[in-house]
C-alpha cells in the first residue's frame, strides 16, 4: 500500500487513478485535495521547450515516504498519496501530484499545502530547463 501510494516514475500518471487509490482506503473520506504541478511554458521570462528531472534514487523515494508519514502523523487526514515524475516532461504535462484525503476539507487542504512545500524543501530532485538557448539546471547559481 505504502509503496503504491508514494512513487517516483518516468511515465505519466492518472489523477483519477491516484485519487481512487487514496479513496479506496476508507469510506469515511469526505474531502480530497489534490495538488497537481504541471510544466509551464515560461520560466523567469524565458520560453521553456521541455523539462528534464533527475533524482537521487533511493533517497528521494525515502524522503517522499517520510513526508507521507509525517503528514499522517501531524494532520487529521486519513490517507496521502505522492507521485513525482522524472526524466523528460513536455510543456503542459504532469510533474507531481499530492493527494490528501480527510473527513473534513480543512485538514486535507492544510496537509496538501504542507506536503508540496516540504517536498520542494527536502526531496533530492532537480529540474533542468531546456530553452532555445540551451539547457540550464534550475538554481544553477545558488
Amino acid at each position, binding site marked *: 500500500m505504502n509503496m503504491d501510494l508514494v512513487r517516483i516514475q518516468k511515465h505519466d500518471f492518472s489523477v483519477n487513478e491516484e485519487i481512487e487509490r487514496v479513496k479506496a482506503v476508507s469510506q469515511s473520506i469526505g474531502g480530497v485535495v489534490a495538488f497537481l*504541478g504541471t510544466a509551464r511554458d515560461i520560466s523567469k521570462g524565458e520560453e521553456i521547450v521541455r523539462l528534464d*528531472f*533527475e*533524482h*537521487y534514487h*533511493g*533517497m*528521494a523515494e*525515502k524522503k517522499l515516504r517520510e513526508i507521507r508519514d509525517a503528514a499522517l502523523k501531524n494532520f487529521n487526514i486519513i490517507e496521502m498519496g505522492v507521485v*513525482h515524475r522524472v526524466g523528460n516532461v513536455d510543456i503542459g504535462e504532469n*510533474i*507531481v501530484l499530492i493527494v490528501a484525503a480527510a473527513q473534513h476539507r480543512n485538514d486535507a487542504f492544510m496537509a496538501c499545502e504542507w506536503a*508540496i512545500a516540504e*517536498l*520542494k*524543501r*527536502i*526531496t*533530492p*530532485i*532537480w*529540474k*533542468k530547463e531546456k530553452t532555445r538557448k540551451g539547457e540550464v*539546471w*534550475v*538554481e*544553477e547559481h*545558488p
Partner: protein
Amino acid sequence: MTIKVRFFAMLKTKAGKEEVNLTVSENISLAQLKDMLKKEFPVLAEFIDSKSIMISVNQEFAVKNTIIKGGDEVALLPPFSGG
C-alpha cells in the same frame, strides 16, 4: 578506508562525473570530508563552501558532527528544484 562520493545535477556537470571512490582516513568528520573534496575537486570548491549545497551520508542529510565511515555513500546535493 574507502567511501563513494556521488554528484547530482549541476554538480555532476561541474565535476564531469557521476561518482568517484575516494580513499580517506578512518572516521573523518563532515568538515574534514569537505576539505578533502575541495582539494580533490577544485572546480567544486566554491559550491562546497556555499550554504546552499547539502551533503548526504548513506542517503540521509549529514550534519556538522556526522562521522563518515568506510563504505559510506556520500552525495553532494545542489539546491532541490522538484515539485
